[in-house]
């Protein structure tokens, strides 16, 4: 089974999906700066420094945070744009059995990817959160 995890903060650990075997493949799509580790393919995306800085500033104020959410610099949208421009991710997604949005900011990229695949006639399983991913892995086996 191939699982692609959209996790900007790289929250995936080896105990996250205990139902997977050594024959299965997990690809974690995250921002650059993550550490490489055994058993997981990491695809690191280049950070957008302006968006990072804005997100940090807005994080301290509810109004600013809300405004950022509806702007094109929303962290979820920025992450999706980075995903869209990365050939390696698109290749991995093409062979995936399951897409997982690990965090809030991975949700939009997962949804958009799922919709793109649907337009090309492919029904792609996609879930939000690791508990749902664990249940989906069991279901898809």
């Amino acid at each position, binding site marked *: 089974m191939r699982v692609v995890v959209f996790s900007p903060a790289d*929250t995936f*650990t080896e105990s996250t999906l205990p139902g997977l075997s050594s024959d299965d493949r997990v690809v974690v799509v995250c921002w650059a700066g993550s550490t490489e580790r055994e058993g997981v393919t990491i695809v690191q995306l280049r950070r957008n420094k302006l968006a990072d800085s804005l997100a940090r500033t807005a994080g301290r104020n509810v109004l600013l945070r809300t405004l950022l959410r509806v702007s094109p610099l929303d962290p*979820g949208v920025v992450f999706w744009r980075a995903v869209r421009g990365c050939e390696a991710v698109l290749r991995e997604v093409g062979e995936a059995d399951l897409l997982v949005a*690990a965090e809030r900011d991975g949700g939009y990229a997962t*949804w958009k990817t799922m919709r793109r695949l649907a337009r090309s006639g492919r029904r792609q399983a*996609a879930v939000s*959160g*690791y*508990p*749902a991913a664990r249940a989906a892995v069991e279901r898809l086996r």
Partner: protein
Amino acid sequence: MTVTRPHLLYTAWGFPPSRAGGVYRAVATVNAFARSGWDVTVLTVPRELFVSSTGGDLLLEQRVDSSVRVERLAVSTPAFESDITVWPRLRARAPELWTAWDWRHDLRRFPEPAYGRFRPELERAALNIHSQSPVDLAIGTANPNVDFIPGWTLHRSAGVPYVMDYRDAWRLDVFSGRTLLASGSRAGRWERTLQRGAAEVWFVNEAIRSWHVDAHPGISERAHVVANGYEQYDVPLAVPVRAERDKGLVFGYIGTVTDRVPLNALLEGWRRARARDPRMRSATLVIHGYAGHFGTSAAVARELALSDPGVRFEGPVSKSTIGKVYAGFDALVLLLGTGRYVTSGKVYEYAATGIPIAAIHDPSNAASEVLAASPARVATRSLMPDDISDALVETAALACSQTPADRARAQHWAGQYERSRQLNPRIDALTRLVTREPLS
């Protein structure tokens, strides 16, 4: 009115396989009523909802008494919908805005976001169950507070007495002590209405009870503290002193790692304790539990591992076999969020083990009262790293010197918090109420 075998309708959103903290109280309550000769029907939500959103504890389902009938409402719960293929675009693009917009379905029925929409279905289900098998008593456990609706509905339509069981509080932030919703708000008015008709209102500690009695003095006589207590599952909680403790002490924490728990302060105190005390230098801290309510913050695990080589994160453990995990510890870390209304269920479970406890929480927490007389507790003076370090070092000393007799004494002391001792007085009183037996 049924006399020989009364019928309890128990409403709990969180019921196995839910792994939420309050679920143990629900299981213990229905089991205790069933053992006391009641027919029990539980009104709850589909099991899949927990398995696919917050994660489930499948072994806990087996702990429910086999005589308990579980009715699962086929509710539609978008907030818990984790299948992204059915999400609308707005939910994926701006989840906070989508959530706020979605609350309109709740608030027009009952003033509780994400849950208020279930009021009509809960009312219908309660009336349906009552028509099939007359209900003698209804208990709702909150949150969510919409769980109080079936009892209130049956009381209005058929005079059925009902109990409101608060595991938390509706209008009070138990961590900050702040009033979240004014008494004149819609929620405040609903709460007054619900409490006015209740036969009993249960709270988990005296601090939360007092707050509610101050808010609604009329409930004083009917307001009771039903502490969480602890219960034994497959493996006993009363574990022996570990034979291998001389090779390096093992400190343990079992519980959800949320933003509320002072984890960073603990880790800093842990590092300082290890730097100054030889017993701590060879010690290990093992953290068991979920990271975050939705179990998604696995980054916490990596951060913990990186923070100190003596710290390990080992993920969740089933309540059914939790005794086995406790048997591997020499000392426990009681890490709680700050708040004078905070007790937490694990206080009692920790106490039941008899293992020395480093109480790493604000001294004003309600948990302090519970453990005040414990022979196995060492409390930090504050949440400053040096004070935490002192408490850990002192706990290590106690863990090294505790004899089997000391351990047994601590376990015996904790016996007062066995769950059935909290519930039985209320079950007796409610049995008398519904069977009209005179008070003895």
